[in-house]
């Protein structure tokens, strides 16, 4: 959805001098000129008001909400004042450094694994094992003199990151299996996949979260329990997988029949064909749509507010109950929106780079 299609048509704008360009795109008729001037005036007026509110008249730092109330501009001080409960949620205040360190390790690991030069299992597997272990130790604690923190107390941005990563790591393989199942030569596998995908795509994510929280424990034999956070992550992941499976199916359908026949002619089995011939091409074809759904999955993690998980949005909403700072909700929510926009933008920039690499035949 977010990816703009690459057009190969001749673009006359590309080689125009500024003068003709302005004339062509902004002032090519009386009506156009009037529209441009009116729009520009409104835009400038809005930008000016926004700058005045957000920059010139804003309060950047204070611990006294009354200073903010006296000012006419934004109160960014609320973020300075409350950034810790907003970013880290219910996690014990003295242990916040653990979450900060966790986020650093997490981001470093993700950035390294997204870099094609590091795409080497001998590097990535140990990297992820070490990262997962150290993140686990930091989050849970209980060893090396770190205080134990149960998952119920986890929160804020690290929780959003964990939910998102869990969703993608669990969801992608399930999505591939479901997509293959839907295109399998076995009618029963096809039926099971179709019913599963269509049923889950037909219901809202919230009902699946309700199932994960309220119904799933009933499925287990007495005495057995699965961690609530894990249940929720798996719930979001399966929902994500059903949408992603349809995208991957589109990619599978785009593979010409000749590829299957060529694979069969050199006597490759089903799994060999799928693994070495079909999937690499299919996933490349539908990469833009796949990344769109991955970005959507990041936004969807915010649904956990309904079942009371303390992700960054829930934490911020809770912080905004503070009567002293409550009136500065716009600034706080803008900050959270900025966090989502930043990560979404970073992902889409990376996705575009990935498409470029694919087009160049580098990966």
């Amino acid at each position, binding site marked *: 959805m977010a990816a703009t299609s690459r057009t190969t048509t001749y673009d006359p704008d590309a080689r125009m001098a500024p003068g003709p360009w302005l004339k062509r795109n902004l002032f090519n008729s009386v009506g156009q000129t009037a529209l441009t001037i009116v729009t520009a005036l409104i835009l400038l007026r809005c930008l000016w008001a926004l700058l005045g509110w957000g920059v010139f008249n804003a309060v950047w730092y204070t611990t006294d909400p009354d200073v903010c109330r006296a000012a006419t501009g934004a109160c960014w001080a609320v973020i300075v004042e409350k950034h810790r409960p907003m970013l880290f949620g219910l996690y014990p205040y003295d242990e916040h450094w653990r979450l900060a360190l966790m986020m650093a390790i997490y981001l470093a690991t993700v950035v390294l694994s997204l870099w094609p030069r590091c795409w080497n299992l001998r590097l990535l597997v140990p990297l992820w094992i070490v990262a997962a272990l150290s993140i686990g130790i930091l989050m849970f604690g209980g060893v090396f003199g770190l205080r134990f923190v149960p998952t119920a107390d986890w929160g804020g941005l690290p929780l959003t990151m964990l939910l998102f990563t869990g969703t993608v790591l669990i969801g992608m393989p399930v999505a591939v299996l479901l997509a293959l199942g839907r295109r399998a030569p076995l009618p029963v596998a096809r039926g099971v996949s179709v019913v599963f995908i269509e049923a889950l795509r037909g219901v809202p994510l*919230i009902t699946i979260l309700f199932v994960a929280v309220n119904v799933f424990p009933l499925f287990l034999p007495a005495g057995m329990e699965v961690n609530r956070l894990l249940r929720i992550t798996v719930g979001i992941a399966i929902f994500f997988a059903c949408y992603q499976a349809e995208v991957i199916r589109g990619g599978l359908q785009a593979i010409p029949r000749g590829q299957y026949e060529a694979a069969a002619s050199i006597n490759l089995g089903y799994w060999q064909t799928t693994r070495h011939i079909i999937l690499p091409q299919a996933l490349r074809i539908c990469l833009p749509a796949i990344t769109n759904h991955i970005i959507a999955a990041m936004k969807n993690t915010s649904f956990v507010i309904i079942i009371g998980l303390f992700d960054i949005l829930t934490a911020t909403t809770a912080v905004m109950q503070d009567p002293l700072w409550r009136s500065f909700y716009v600034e706080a929510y803008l900050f959270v929106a900025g966090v989502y926009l930043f990560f979404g933008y970073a992902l889409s920039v990376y996705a575009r780079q990935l498409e470029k690499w694919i087009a160049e035949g580098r990966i």
Partner: protein
Amino acid sequence: MTDATPARGGKRPAKGLKDILNSESFRSAIYQIALGAAVVLLGLYLYQNVVENLQRQNIATGFGFLGEVSQFQIGERLIEYSPRDTYGRALIVGLLNTLTVSAAGIVVATVIGFSVGIARVSSNWLLQRIALGYVEIVRNIPVILQVIFWAAVIRNLPAPRNAVELFGLGFISNRGLAFAVPVADPAHLWMGLALLAGIVLTVIGTRLARRHREKTGRYVDMLWPGLGMIFGLPLLVWLLSGAPHVIDFPERQGFSFSGGATISPEFVALMLGISLYSSGFIAEIVRAGIQATPKGQVEAARSISLRPRFILRYVVLPQALRVIVPPLTSQYVSLSKNSSIAVVVGYPDLVNIGNTVMNQTGQAVEAIAVMMLVYLIISLVTSTLMNIYNRLVAIKER
């Protein structure tokens, strides 16, 4: 199912037992039986666990609870409802609220989405960029955050006493929107019928005009007669019934308003949040649709001096709609599914009431099943209608 991967291997006549065991069809039968058995066994195992767990926790099963008295009040309702009514009726109230907020959201999202989508392909560069900025912002911020944001904005609006007045027609305050409505009059029913009659007559007239054109080659313009009938007939009825023009204005009264019609803050917040979020996606769908018609076709139509209206009607729209309508409907479905986050602002939609029912009765399985079933039916009905539409507008190759 025609979308299976091409089958592998040629057919060889089976000779012995070994050949049968090794044959592709035999193995695929084995795999399928194993998969089917695994699914059935897993289902049975889970079912048994659920039954045992529920028995142990003394939770009733079945849908009998739908007939029990609910004992909770619902703030917003389209049909009569009191705490003495049943859970089943409460859920119907919720379903109607879901449909209301979805319908309103769809209208708002469509209007904004089409405007922004058209601005996205405007020849004015500035307008194009502003539209792009809007799209990128609204669709990349989680919908829940947007709903919560609007709820906070409304909560911080002035109280009714200092409500913002809208050209003397209504008020905006932290109690939502209060606005003037015409007092109900029997003439309204007749006006509605007249509107319907106008539409039906226009459709028939257009059909006749087309048949006439196809037979004789002479074009009869139905635009103005059609518009005249659709708007003129209700107006005529209104005038004939003595032009009832009593309007009920809202008035400030204590902590709220009396008179007029009111829309609750929860409704406004939820509707705004989900419709603005969807409008970004709709704008992109519209842009893609408009760009689906190659420029050359419009130029070609112009060169045979087709009127601009006909270029739109017979050249651009048929191609654009074929691209726009399928993703647009799925956007509508996802908007109505997004309305299920109503619980974060306290709007009593199906999921919110279902949640209350679930907490009161403890019958999570049944309550969630009801919610899922309703949404599933909405999705399936929409996709069925969509398939019918697709078959109608698909490119007919002769």
